[in-house]
């Protein structure tokens, strides 16, 4: 578990602090992990605050309105005000609810969103833990969200919640297939499961990014990953589990206050996460597009690319209607999966010859 090979920026920082010399290395590691978790919790929280504001503003301008304008400059503090409101809101647990599971569910869902952030290569030397099986770790952690959502839906003792949970679980389990296959494309091209290695193998200009370098297979894989990841995180046009016009709010129907905002944080954390994964796998991670621009540090590029993908998520949400359940499954099994196999095959051929 604690290996020298796991390069950890937080461990490195803690090691250099002379004040903490009395601690044994294991404790230092634990301390570093706790700090990393806190840092990422705040990254998600702050990102969610900003992203919700951006989403509202983008939605507003797309719909010929202005969005929030009152709190702070152009309403930047609006989400903060909403967050405070949610924090001080009464914590309602309705009767007939399975209390233990009800309380546990948002924690599990949020935890999975948080845990994914460990392996993102933000910069050349900026990664919490460069796991050897980084991308596999991400796939493994993201499966954990399914029991969490089922837990939320079942414990709410509400038929709409159960519908939402069922839809969500079926959707996430199904879409793991095209997501996995699209990831395999990038892994095949890089020849490694480690996130940092995948990024490094895309060095030297944007034509070496996997989205362009193995054209068109890389592009197809990226497209499949992007679409399927939208479904994995329940965003429009695949937001059936929380489709308000059909099943009220899905598995979140009975939640309110802070517990509800945990689901919300997890949703935005997931948006950030899939954006970051797509950036790492297909858009060259922290690599600069052309060497002229290499004076801009890697983390900036990584953030910019991720934010662009998040913007596309928002943009799509305010454009498209919602699919039906059977069409969702049709798209997964009969469109995305075959094309993912085609691109795996193509990249395999490409790598061989």
């Amino acid at each position, binding site marked *: *578990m*604690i*290996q*020298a*090979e796991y390069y950890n920026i937080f461990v490195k920082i803690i090691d250099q602090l002379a004040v903490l010399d009395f601690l*044994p290395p*294991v*404790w230092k*590691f*634990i301390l570093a992990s706790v700090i990393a978790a806190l840092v990422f919790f705040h990254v998600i929280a702050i990102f969610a605050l900003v992203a919700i504001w951006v989403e509202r503003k983008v939605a507003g301008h797309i719909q010929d309105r202005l969005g929030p304008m009152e709190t702070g400059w152009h309403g930047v503090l609006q989400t903060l005000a909403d967050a405070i409101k949610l924090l001080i809101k009464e914590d309602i647990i309705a009767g007939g609810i*399975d209390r*233990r*599971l009800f309380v546990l569910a948002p924690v599990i869902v949020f935890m999975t969103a948080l845990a994914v952030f460990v392996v993102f290569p933000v910069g050349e030397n900026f990664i919490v833990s460069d*796991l*050897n*099986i980084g991308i*596999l*770790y991400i*796939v*493994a*952690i993201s*499966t*954990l969200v*399914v*029991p969490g959502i*089922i*837990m939320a839906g*079942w414990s709410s*003792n509400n*038929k709409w919640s*159960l519908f939402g*949970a*069922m839809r969500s*679980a079926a959707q996430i*389990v199904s879409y*793991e297939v095209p997501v996995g296959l699209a990831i395999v494309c990038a892994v095949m091209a890089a020849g490694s*499961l480690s996130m940092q290695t995948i990024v490094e193998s895309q060095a030297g200009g944007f034509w070496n990014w996997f989205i362009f370098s193995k054209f068109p297979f890389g592009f197809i894989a990226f497209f499949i990953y992007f679409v399927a990841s939208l479904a994995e995180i329940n965003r429009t046009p695949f937001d059936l589990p929380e489709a308000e016009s059909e099943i009220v709010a899905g598995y979140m129907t009975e939640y309110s206050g802070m517990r509800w905002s945990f689901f919300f944080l997890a949703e935005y954390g997931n948006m950030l996460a899939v954006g970051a994964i797509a950036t790492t796998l297909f858009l060259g991670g922290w690599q600069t597009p052309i060497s002229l621009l290499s004076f801009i540090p890697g983390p900036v590029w990584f953030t910019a690319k991720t934010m662009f993908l998040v913007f596309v998520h928002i943009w799509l949400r305010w454009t498209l209607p919602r699919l039906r359940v059977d069409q969702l499954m049709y798209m997964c099994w009969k469109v995305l999966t075959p094309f993912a196999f085609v691109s795996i095959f193509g990249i395999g051929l490409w790598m061989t010859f």
Partner: protein
Amino acid sequence: MIGKDIIFIIFAVITVGSAALVVFSKKIIYAAFSLMLSLFGVAALFVFLNADFLAAVQVIVYVGGILVLILFGVLLTVKISSDNVISHLSQRIWGSIAAVGMFVLIFIAITRTNWTILDKSEDVVYYPQSEAIGIQLLTNYILPFEVASILLLAALIGAMFLVRPENK
């Protein structure tokens, strides 16, 4: 290395404790979610053994696949409005005999194994496993690998055949 031991003990307690919950909890849904925790604890123990690939696969297959299947089974077979999804402890005697027998077998196996190989080298050198597993699977163990995949394919086709609507 007291810290490492503490972490190990925490995960061991989680694994064993939630396994016990699986057996003793009255509500089936609690048992199912405890199983998730137990499987997750096992994955953590795999990490302790430097088997990170195995840990990830454990989570993907067991938590993401089998556990979700169990949960679906529980949810779809029982009305949600009825709260009494109770499991009964029946056949205690046979069950405990089987459990004790299993424990004795494993205990004997542990005591008889020669663990000294690991003691010699104080710091175990970590090397990536996924690559080695991949190479082994596609060279030495290609036949079992393919047989397993054919088995799974057969299961898939069988499942599709079973759920197909009857011809009218």
